[in-house]
């Protein structure tokens, strides 16, 4: 009796933990309780349809900015073209800023092209000295989009005054600096793009496991980190005084050009929602994504439709921010109550992403290397 019991139990156990031979038919229609979401397909969609096309477009916009800058420095008579190229590249940047993983993380792309506010003192002293090392972290706030913002909008009270600087005694130094800032951005962008087009894409997709260092887990962390720190806090929370108690207009993105920060924020918000839904770059095609992953998990869990909840909160946040005037005008109110109400709608996504989504996917946030029980 004992033996039979033991044998049955052990046999049952090994059946339960079966090898690959114990084939259980998996239902791929998504209606069954399979739970075997194809993370590799999601990573491929991210890389091929979102990230790489994003960097390709951004790289093109940086190239346009480079030629527009060259044209402007050759003949500093009109700022319109170079300003337009800057805005175009800056807008596109909002779509790729999320992807701070792999090559972009290695070169710290985000810190190198978009630390704001720009440090005007450093910029001016760099121009005065005529020599500067953009590789130094102390120069990060003296280059990138915020530095160009200052150089194209902040050097004088109006366009005439700004052009006068470029055509004045120090003009050559300013032109040189502008060219160097753009060249630095170009060099960083090219290096990131070429890595993605080279070996990194395959490495990214191949790492499709479930460990803390797997692509999905790391990327979801990076994605939420971007949403929380750079979109929510950087573009709205900090200027709105959420963390300090004082409105800090000087911390707005695109400070000198003015009245752009709301639009840049909205592009960033669109980018995060499109990424969530796996929407291909600049088209409406959708592939495997965090949202389809949640749908898949929901099929097993038979719980709330988190995917819908997150998407509708994205929509609410967008509608709320869109209804605002420019951030500058909103922040001139004291207290800026409407601005802060919109911020709260943006904030509501944080727990949904950071608690609900991550918990449903069993992805740990900010990996803590420790034992559990």
């Amino acid at each position, binding site marked *: 009796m004992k033996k039979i019991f033991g044998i049955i139990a052990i046999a049952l156990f090994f059946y339960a933990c079966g090898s690959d031979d114990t084939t259980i038919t998996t239902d791929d229609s998504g209606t069954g309780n399979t739970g075997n979401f194809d993370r590799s397909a999601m990573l491929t969609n991210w890389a091929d349809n979102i990230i790489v096309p994003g960097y390709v477009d951004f790289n093109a916009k940086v190239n346009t900015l480079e030629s527009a800058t060259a044209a402007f420095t050759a003949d500093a008579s009109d700022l319109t073209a170079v300003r337009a190229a800057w805005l175009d590249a800056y807008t596109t940047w909002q779509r790729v800023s999320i992807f701070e993983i792999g090559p972009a993380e290695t070169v710290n792309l985000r810190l190198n092209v978009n630390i704001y506010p720009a440090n005007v003192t450093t910029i001016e002293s760099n121009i005065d000295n005529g020599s500067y090392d953009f590789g130094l972290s102390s120069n990060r706030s003296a280059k990138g989009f915020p530095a160009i913002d200052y150089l194209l909008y902040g050097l004088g009270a109006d366009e005439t005054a700004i052009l006068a600087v470029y055509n004045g005694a120090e003009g050559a130094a300013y032109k040189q600096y502008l060219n160097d800032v753009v060249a630095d951005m170009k060099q960083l962008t090219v290096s990131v793009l070429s890595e993605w087009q080279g070996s990194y894409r395959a490495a990214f997709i191949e790492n499709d496991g479930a460990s803390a260092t797997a692509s999905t887990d790391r990327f979801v962390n990076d994605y939420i980190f971007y949403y929380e720190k750079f979109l929510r806090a950087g573009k709205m929370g900090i200027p709105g005084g959420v963390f*300090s108690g004082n409105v800090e207009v000087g911390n707005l993105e695109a400070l000198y050009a003015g009245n752009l920060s709301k639009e840049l924020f909205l592009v960033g918000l669109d980018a995060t929602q499109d990424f969530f839904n796996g929407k291909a770059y600049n088209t409406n095609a959708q592939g495997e994504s965090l949202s389809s992953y949640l749908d898949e998990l929901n099929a097993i869990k038979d719980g709330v439709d988190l995917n819908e909840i997150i998407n509708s909160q994205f929509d609410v946040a967008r509608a709320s921010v869109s209804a605002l005037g420019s951030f500058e005008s909103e922040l001139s109110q004291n207290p800026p109550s409407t601005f802060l109400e919109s911020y709260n709608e943006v904030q509501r996504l944080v727990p949904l992403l950071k608690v609900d989504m991550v918990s449903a996917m069993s992805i740990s946030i900010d990996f803590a290397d420790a034992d559990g029980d």
Partner: protein
Amino acid sequence: MIQQVKRYLNTQREAAPLAVFRVSFGLLMLASLIRFWSHGWIEKFYIAPSFHFTFYGFEWVRPFENYTYLLFAICALSTIMITIGYKYRLAIIIFFLSFTYIELMDKTMYLNHYYFISMLSFLMIFIPAGSYFSIDALQLSRKRAATPIQFVPRWTIDSIKLLLGIVYVYAGLAKLNSDWLVKAMPLKIWLPSKFDIPFIGDLLGQEWVHYAFSWFGAGYDLLIPFFLLWRKSRPFAFIMVIIFHVLTRVLFPIGMFPYVMIVSALIFFDVGFHKKIIYAFAKAVKYPQQLLETTQHYAPRNLNLAKASIVIVAIFFTVQLLLPWRYLAYPGELFWTEEGYRFSWRVMLMEKSGYAQFKIVDGVSGKRFYVDNTDFLTPLQEKQMSFQPDFILEYAHYLRDHFEGQGHQEVEVYVESYVALNGRLSTTYIDPKADLAQIEDSFAHKNWIIPFTDEIKGL
């Protein structure tokens, strides 16, 4: 009845199982400490953070900056003494005190199995595990020409079995709830994410597997001590112990715990089995064989002390049996409020995560702002803090003191928090209108926790 108890307490058994238990316990604890040290966790968890979450009543237990390493070294030294059986009683007392102190330094690090080690080592203080196959026995025979003992009170061996039994059975009882049995939660969340484990990865996404693991897990915990006790089912039960704990090791990051449980289960085996192990070891280390066959019985040197030991152990087990039920004294859902959750052998029962954003209000100027938790807490501390009310309160007090130290006056601290439990959508956790700066922690019910919106049936 009393006669029977007296007779039981006077019964003696061969000490071999205790010796095997002592040696393996010592070695595993040493390995555990080396592992902890080599992962850099002493620095990361105890030295680097500027703030530590403390246990109620143990706020005075603090890390000693770099001397914390010394504490770990003392603890490790005691495990070596335990292993070789050198000044056993002193060694196990040092181990209990140093290990428990380590565990009390930061509540963030609380794990059921660390608590288990603390309780086990406390119990071992009253067990003569060092008097057989040990340096102590060797020295005794050389110095005084006395014969080392071979027989110890039976209750000392049985008490280890009882403690293991309590751990298993209470862990099993805790699984008898609707989330675990009816919804297969949280395994339904955890298992599919382990899809990349070789061989079984694909199966882990299957719903029936989640149910099978849940029900098997509950049944295993409830029954395994009894199958280990019964001689006929023992070998089979031990195989199950190995399979079960190796599987949990593969599936979850639970460190040394599976090995501790596997080795501890050996205590249920007969003397013959343990003697085989000891004789093999004795041969290898050239331990004199005649010291293993002495017929000498254990006789306490101080009779009052021996009686006191039995009373202490009896009280210890009463506490162990009652403490897990203290949650019944609190209103609300245990998994949600966690009032009475710790020290109750509730193991791997919840997928719970949270988000807590603190708002500081200067009561005089009316100025208000939010706190960036990463300024004060490590990622692990922030994670644990965000869904446990006592952590939230302690942190709120820390923030109050910090910002008052910065010159803010009459600081009020509010928290906007969301918690998700076992696949439910996150909901507000702490009353956002409660000024945490004013609330003192106690054993009383925390009425500033927003009640759970769902129901979990069961124990």
